[in-house]
């Protein structure tokens, strides 16, 4: 009994102000002032920003164009490969420098890529490529970072789950479907399939039992 109470006290407590708010609400209701009109509710704070403010803000925050972005990144990492003429700024990093590079672009305040949009893998004949789509929520940059594994058989790469927590789950998915092992990953497990399965998104995946080819 005692232990249960303790735990409730620590974690299960609701905000005390909810009680006050409801009592205020009740007073108003008794006075028949509370009439719900559309979405204008009382005591709730959903703010909305209109488009003009948003555009102005993003313009002031837009620290650099795509060319400047590429320039800054290549000056800091001279051996990184930049692809020309692609949809977004695209940079390929060596697999052993990936973690330091990622740490840098997140912590650097002029870059501040704090939102990992998408992480995925692509199987090529010689290597497996991991593609990171990154966005900065303050500057609204968008960038693609790529890293290739050394080979296909023992495909390993450093994890970035300590930089962006969401990468932990995307990396599990990549491990499941493409078979890339991520070093230092906290909990690398297969999400979709069992251990008995191969890695289906690899191009040499072949399954006579489950797949009906067309």
């Amino acid at each position, binding site marked *: 009994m005692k232990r249960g109470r303790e735990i409730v006290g620590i974690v299960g407590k609701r905000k005390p102000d909810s009680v006050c708010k409801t009592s205020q609400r009740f007073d108003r209701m008794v006075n028949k002032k509370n009439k719900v009109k559309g979405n204008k509710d009382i005591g709730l704070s959903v703010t909305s920003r209109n488009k003009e403010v948003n555009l102005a803000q993003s313009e002031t925050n837009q620290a650099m164009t795509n060319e400047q972005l590429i320039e800054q990144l290549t000056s800091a990492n001279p051996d990184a490969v930049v692809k020309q003429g692609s949809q977004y700024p695209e940079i390929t990093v060596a697999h052993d420098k990936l973690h330091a590079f990622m740490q840098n672009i997140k912590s650097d305040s002029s870059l501040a890529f704090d939102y990992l949009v998408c992480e995925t893998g692509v199987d090529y004949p010689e290597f497996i490529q991991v593609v990171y789509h990154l966005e900065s929520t303050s500057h609204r940059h968008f960038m693609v970072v790529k890293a290739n594994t050394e080979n296909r058989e023992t495909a390993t790469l450093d994890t970035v789950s300590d930089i962006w927590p969401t990468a932990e789950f995307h990396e599990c998915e990549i491990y499941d479907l493409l078979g890339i092992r991520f070093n230092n990953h906290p909990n690398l497990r297969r999400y*979709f*399939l*069992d251990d008995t399965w191969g890695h*289906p998104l690899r191009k040499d*995946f072949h*399954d006579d039992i*489950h*797949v*009906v*080819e*067309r």
Partner: protein
Amino acid sequence: MGITSKKEFEKNDFPVLDSYEGGSIILTQLDALVNWARSNSVWPLTFGTRCCAIEFMAVGASRHDMARFGYEVARATPRQADMIIISGSINYKMAPVLKRLYDQIADPKYVIAMGACAVSGGPFYYNSYSIVKGADHVIPVDIYVPGCPPRPEALLYAFLQLQKKIKREKNFKKQLKK
């Protein structure tokens, strides 16, 4: 119900597999009574996997009220249910779960395979490595409803078919034979 006089409904009739030999008038009437009661109180299991589950919910809601057939009590536990509506695809990880759910339902139990995925694998028949090509590879299916997803009326039509199937069962014959 006016439906029984319709030609199309009569067309796809169930085969009478077993018939009484002479002299079972009382048992036949009893059967009819029991089956009438059973066919109007089939409780489905809340089991939804893919888009068909949304149409199953729509069947349960106001526009297409399945309470009119006595099917409205969707149970969350298989022990209280009579029927599974497999609404969506079943993959190899889910198949043992479906089998277990089916085993937990008390007899008599019925299965409706709703939608193309449950009938034959549907859009995932070719080149998909993890979808079972039809739910009847896992458990026996009584009624198949094609559609992707079938509209609610199509599922109601399947309920009518299932009612017809239940009404043709011979409960007491089996008991007597033992």
